[in-house]
């Protein structure tokens, strides 16, 4: 994980004290003081794949836009086509610079015909707020609800049974990338069937002041199901096994959606939006490099920033890498020349001056278990 340097004091989520009391190791992340692990990254990772895990992701940002021009503004800012989104649906999308680089990746919620919520990365809240309010004016009003919103993720094969038991609405009817309003353990929530792990599960948006109550209710309700609190360390290994991009590691202002494999959320046919012309030019020209998933042949850990070599020449860079607990191999993501991007292509990763063999892998590395229907 890249820790974005922060000038001010570290921010804390409403659950800071709960984490400290639970014995979490707290670390700076994107300007926030967050739990990186409780019992251990591998143990927590496996708990999510096997049973259910509870994550505090209240550090993430939530912006709302409401008004008659809300859809038009979202369409101009985001790369994906929000007009295809029904009320109650969620969409993965990007904010791009006019040059095609990525401002942030986000999930977009259609709350009503004329009202949307954007969930953005914690480290980017200030930058994104500045961006959307500067470039998205006229006929709608923006609200930054980040500080008032608590966000808990419940992920794993036992997540549905747990949330269903505590909710006053039928959450089993929700499929992936859909949401409903309801109460969970008496706390009013936006219940979203989304996540960043590849497991089935939910993300629960609640008033910040009620996050602690909900946390304890979920921990209590999930005890027999083997629930564990999960830190950012396992969140990172879980998402890496799915080849989900992490902003600041795999994508940023210097990478474009096409080379990052995110062309599927860029919809030029919908009309103009920030970055459209640049991305279309790239599409016509073809991208020079691609973000691939790779696995190490030997047990050697590739890490963010390590060079990728081909025949001893530096040709690319590792953007994420770790031992992957469910794949039981060392895996990674990185940018390589298009000619080396095919599954099975061999390359080397330079680790402490030594070339270590790696192979471009089929991704996701671990099969997705999300509830598609």
């Amino acid at each position, binding site marked *: *994980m890249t820790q974005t340097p922060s000038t001010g004091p570290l921010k804390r989520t409403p659950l800071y004290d709960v984490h400290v009391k639970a014995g979490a*190791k707290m670390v700076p992340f994107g300007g926030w003081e967050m739990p*990186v*692990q409780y019992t*251990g*990254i*591998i*143990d927590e990772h496996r708990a999510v794949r096997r049973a259910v895990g509870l994550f505090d992701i209240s550090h993430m940002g939530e912006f709302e836009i409401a008004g008659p021009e809300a859809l038009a503004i979202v369409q101009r800012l985001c790369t994906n086509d929000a007009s295809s989104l029904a009320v109650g649906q969620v969409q993965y999308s990007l904010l791009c610079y006019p040059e095609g680089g990525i401002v942030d990746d986000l999930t977009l919620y259609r709350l009503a015909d004329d009202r949307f919520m954007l969930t953005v990365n914690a480290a980017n809240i200030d930058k994104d707020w500045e961006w959307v309010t500067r470039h998205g004016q006229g006929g709608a009003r923006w609200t930054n609800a980040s500080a008032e919103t608590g966000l808990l993720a419940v992920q794993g094969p036992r997540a549905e049974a747990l949330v269903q038991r505590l909710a006053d609405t039928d959450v089993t009817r929700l499929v992936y990338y859909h949401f409903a309003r309801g109460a969970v353990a008496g706390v009013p929530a936006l219940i979203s069937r989304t996540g960043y792990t590849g497991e089935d599960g939910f993300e629960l948006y609640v008033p910040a002041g009620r996050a602690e109550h909900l946390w304890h209710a979920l921990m209590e309700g999930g005890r027999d199901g083997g629930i564990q609190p999960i830190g950012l*360390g396992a969140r990172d*290994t879980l998402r890496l096994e799915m080849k989900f991009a992490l902003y600041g590691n795999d994508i940023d202002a210097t990478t474009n959606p096409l080379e990052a494999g995110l062309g599927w959320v860029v919809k030029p046919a919908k009309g103009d939006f920030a970055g459209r012309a640049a991305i279309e030019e790239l599409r016509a020209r073809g991208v020079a490099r691609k973000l691939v998933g790779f696995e190490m042949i030997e*047990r*050697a*850990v590739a*890490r963010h920033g390590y060079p990728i070599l081909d025949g001893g020449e530096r040709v690319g860079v590792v953007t994420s890498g*770790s*031992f992957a*607990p469910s794949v039981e191999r*060392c895996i990674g993501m990185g940018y390589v020349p298009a000619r080396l991007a095919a599954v099975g292509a061999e390359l080397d990763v330079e680790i*402490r001056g030594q070339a270590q063999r790696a192979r471009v892998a089929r991704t996701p590395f671990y099969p997705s278990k999300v509830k598609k229907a």
Partner: protein
Amino acid sequence: MSNVPAELRYTREHEWAKVEGDRARIGITAFAQEQLGDVVFVELPKVGARVTATKTFGVVESVKAVSDLFAPLSGEVVEANTELVKKPETVNADPYGQGWMIVVKLADPKQVDALLSAADYEQLVAGGGH
């Protein structure tokens, strides 16, 4: 509080040394493995290699971090725990036992005097380990 066996000597970088005659067995402390988290990779010198006190002799990697190993004492490596290549998690499970890393034939046994005692090391760890 981390386990700090009284019979061992320590470095400020969280290695331990167990002196046995003209040899010393070397590993990392319970505090070190706790700080690292799950160890997934250990790189050690080969038997016959020379290590130098205060210089790096290998690498230990956890899921999150890469950390150099610093030799507490100078000498020739006479044993290396190759089991750790296959089972690096042993460093977490048993840092003072099965998780040992190398045995060194000491070049200068007087170097032992420069290492921290268990009491000194305990104090270092109590202060946050820095």
